[in-house]
């Protein structure tokens, strides 16, 4: 799956070993919805860019996220809070997107 990552990492310093990583993929069915979530979540940058990197892309209706960190605990913290907010964005889409009725 890593092959479809479209984001380009700029100048990764070789001194920093980004040895911890993980990937996440959510299938929204359409690029339109995947892009909405992408745009909503791309606004908030990682708080410690020297410790955790997050790359996101959209492909074939899927949101693809790749994390890299210098320590496992940073990876866990970042991933965990990202998942909360990703779930919120997705639920908002589900409840107020197509098929919303009053």
């Amino acid at each position, binding site marked *: 799956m890593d092959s479809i990552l479209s984001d380009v990492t700029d100048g990764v310093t070789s001194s920093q070993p980004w040895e911890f990583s993980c990937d996440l993929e959510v299938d929204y069915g359409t690029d339109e919805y995947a892009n909405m979530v992408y745009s909503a979540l791309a606004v908030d940058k990682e708080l410690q860019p020297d410790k955790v990197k997050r790359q996101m892309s959209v492909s074939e209706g899927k949101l693809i996220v790749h994390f890299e960190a210098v320590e496992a605990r940073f990876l866990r913290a970042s991933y965990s809070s990202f998942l909360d907010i990703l779930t919120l964005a997705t639920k908002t*889409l589900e409840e107020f997107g197509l098929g919303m009725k*009053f």
Partner: protein
Amino acid sequence: MKRMIALGFEGSANKIGVGVVTLDGTILSNPRHTYITPPGHGFLPRETAHHHLQHVLPLIKSALETAQITPEEIDCICYTKGPGMGAPLQVSAVVVRILSQLWKKPIVAVNHCVAHIEMGRVVTGAEDPVVLYVSGGNTQVIAYSEGRYRIFGETIDIAVGNCLDRFARVLTLSNDPSPGYNIEQLAKKGTQFLDLPYAVKGMDATAVEKLKNNECTPADLCYSLQETLFAMLVEITERAMAHCDKKDVLIVGGVGCNERLQDMMRIMCSERGGRLFATDDRYCIDNGAMIAYTGLLAYANGTVTPLEESTFTQRFRTDEVQAIWREKNVSDTNGKVEDGVCS
């Protein structure tokens, strides 16, 4: 002309609220949910954010239903940009970014403190008062001057509401509906006034010391703490009034619904020939309508926040905001001409 409608989200502290308002200040709906911690405990960012995550979506449905509007009728979607706790702020921001794209509506970022002021002004009709904004996170004496709300005084250590909250935790008073409310009720039973340091920081610690030495009852302490804190607030507010040459006072923020504070301020105002404007817990305490209304004022004056810039920030001072709506005075949609505004 079609009435302008805004949907607003507030979640900077332990309340999550969604409100629907029109430009004349009519509140069509304003539901909220409060994260209440057990006695002796405060609210922490992560747990508070989780509370907001669970309640925000049902609140949107409830707000739209009560207001009897559909998303198509909304002109803009507003959210609290700051100040406040980071993780809780993010909840509103993310929901608003999704809704904005789904419904193709513009976003307006709002300063929480300015929203308290505008809500207080529109609910009470106070035109150009000195504002005492006193809550769990902020204590500021504010007045409008040359395009901005200027801060004339503030507590630089902790907010008055924070001092009250901490004290309630020491006494393990209930946090339901709020620590401050329960202090206010207990204070009514106090009979003895104790001298406390005339400074916010350390006041709660001194009070606890007196309790340990059996010098007094918890009720006496609640009473003494309130009298001392509120006397400080009234004093600084009076100084700002003299400085700005304004006669009226508006109290906003969560501590602002304390009736003892309102009584003390009312006495000072009447002695100066002015009036006190205050609101009850529906508007004083954080809510979505105040964000919607203030966002709508900005939107009606041409302000929108692009999606990419719809960030949140823990620090965002009241005087950073250009209050353009007060310069042009477009909030007055009834065609009345107010004279002397923005003097």
